């Protein structure tokens, strides 16, 4: 199997889906000639032309709203939000429209739209190019929110998202784009939306996370294994709606749970994970649930040392897991 980067997996999934189904098309700011500011759509303009790789005006609400209309017509648009931070002008179209179309029309109209958005920090992006936006949408029935951690998951889940007959927000960790590489089958495959994935089996402490932080957990687990601490790692992959069964099983597995998100702590998707555990397997726990997250300050600053202060790292995870193991 070829080893490719996280962003190459995005591009591959898009390309293959566009080849497979002529109703799939891509739209967004700078996705055409420029191939996207991160180069996620690189080569697509050349292969599929400007009709299916559409540079839109700078207007996110229109990008999503036009995508919804095209999806209602029967196409499968993939709309890129240049940075997840810039989805907010489209919040009304996403929450009031895309999410509620099937429900409000009593199953008559559907919106098979995929919204791709790079999120996350660690790229010197400052307040508005670093945020995690999932919590804002993770209370909206009708939406599905996918946040993969590996190139393999990216490709399988992005294809599944494009083929989904419901709107999917597909968050890609922008720092993972070039940092994370992994084996990815060349051919076609999909992975199920809504299913979490055990990324490492272990017995002492359970870590539940998603996105780039999964890699910090894996690195920390390697280190901790040397000290005889065995870490169980559950990757949510879909953060909304939650895979409750997997969460509960993972929590029960070790009885000690560390929930990790790069988002601000209060009101993050990890709050829901904690609530799920507290509802379903409280008496299986041997330690209070712990959350490791960004501080409750607006977003990470641009200046390097301040950004670092804000970010997760494998060291921070290692410490938190160790504390829990020793509880």
């Amino acid at each position, binding site marked *: 199997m070829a080893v490719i980067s996280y962003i190459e997996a995005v591009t591959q999934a898009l390309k293959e889906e566009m080849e497979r189904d002529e109703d799939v098309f891509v739209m967004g700011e700078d996705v055409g000639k420029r191939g996207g500011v991160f180069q996620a759509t690189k080569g697509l303009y050349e292969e599929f032309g400007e009709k299916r790789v559409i540079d839109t005006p700078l207007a996110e609400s*229109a990008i999503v*709203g036009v995508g919804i*209309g*095209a999806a*209602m*017509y029967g196409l499968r648009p993939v709309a890129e939000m240049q940075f997840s931070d810039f989805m907010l002008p489209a919040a009304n179209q996403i929450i009031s429209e895309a999410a509620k179309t099937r429900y*409000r*029309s*009593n199953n008559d109209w559907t919106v098979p739209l995929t919204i791709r958005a790079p999120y996350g920090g660690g790229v010197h992006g400052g307040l508005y190019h670093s945020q995690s936006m999932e919590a804002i949408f993770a209370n909206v029935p*009708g939406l599905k929110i996918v946040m993969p951690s590996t190139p393999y998951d990216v490709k399988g889940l992005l294809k599944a998202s494009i083929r989904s007959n419901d709107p999917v927000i597909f968050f890609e960790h922008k720092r993972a784009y070039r940092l994370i590489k992994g084996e990815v089958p060349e051919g076609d495959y999909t992975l199920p939306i809504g299913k979490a994935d055990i990324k490492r089996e272990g017995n002492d402490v359970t870590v539940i996370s998603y996105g780039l932080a999964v890699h910090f957990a894996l690195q920390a687990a390697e280190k901790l294994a040397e000290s005889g601490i065995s870490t169980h790692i559950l990757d949510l992959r879909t953060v909304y709606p939650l895979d409750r069964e997997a969460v509960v099983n993972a929590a029960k597995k070790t009885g000690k749970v560390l929930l990790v998100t790069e988002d601000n702590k209060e009101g993050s998707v990890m709050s829901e994970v904690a609530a799920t555990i507290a509802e379903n397997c409280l008496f299986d726990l041997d330690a209070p649930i712990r959350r490791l997250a960004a501080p409750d300050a607006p977003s990470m600053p641009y200046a390097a040392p301040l950004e670092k202060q804000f970010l997760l790292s494998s060291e921070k995870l290692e410490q938190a897991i160790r504390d829990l193991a020793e509880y």
Partner: protein
Amino acid sequence: MQNRHHALGFSDQDVLNMYEIMLETRRFDERLWLLNRSGKIPFVVSGQGQEAAQVGAAFALNKEKDYVAPYYRDYGFVLAWGMTLREMMLNNFAKAEDPNSAGRQMPGHFSYRKLRMLTHSSPVTTQNPHAVGVALAAKLKGDDIVSFVTFGEGSSNQGDFHEACNFAGVHKLPVIFLCENNHYAISVGLKHQLSCEHVSDRAKGYGMFGKTFDGNDPLAAYAAVKEAADRAHRGEGPSLLEANFYRLTPHTSDDNDMTYRTKAEVDEAKKHDGVLTFAAYLRELNILTADKEKEMEERIKKEIDDATDYAEKAPFADQDSVLRYVYEERD
């Protein structure tokens, strides 16, 4: 009185049909208020005063192919487009059989896939980009259709109006934006809502064709929408049209319009009511005779009675259905 409809290609029967739909809409609308005042339906949103333009517009489009996104006052439009009175009444009684939403949405939130009518929501102007998306998709697929969308003049101040217009303009898409300017956005009149003289003045900023017409005249509406549709088919891109008329009722059954406008103002506007003025036109030309009128009113009353009766007796959706259709359900 000069015959104006022959020049547009309409026979006398055509305009009689047009009028009949306008009248049917009006009588239906009046019935809604009665039903509301007698406690049978909790809410009415009404299109009185806007029927002429709505029906005229529908006549200018292709009912077999075009896509439409009507807004909550468009009873005249949806009736002309093919929704039945019974369906419209089921919608107002919020019953399971309502094709618009099975009682999930408030009345007037139209939706009917069979009729290529997009689902409408309450946050205003969100439908505008949807209509643009339909046009974009049709263009990608090589389908020669027009995408038609309506909205109020207050709503033309929302960001989505601007973004949708510009997108349609840049991609020269076959979209007709029809602003139904009824001079009020709830209580707020034009002066506090808009800083331009005509909403259609905004067309230039999107490089599109713009036109304001007399919204009380169905023939003027027909002509404007026909022109815009012809342009769209010829690849000349979108148009921004504006129907100029007056909202004759309060905003909804929850509103008391006498807190912000006078009866005298409303009475003055009623003189220009399109249903009355078009009837006068047809009478002058001897197309609408007293007999025909009586016959029409009777048929309409009977149909509305039937629809009301049917809708009142129809069951609500099952309570457990509230959990259905959040996502695709596969068996």
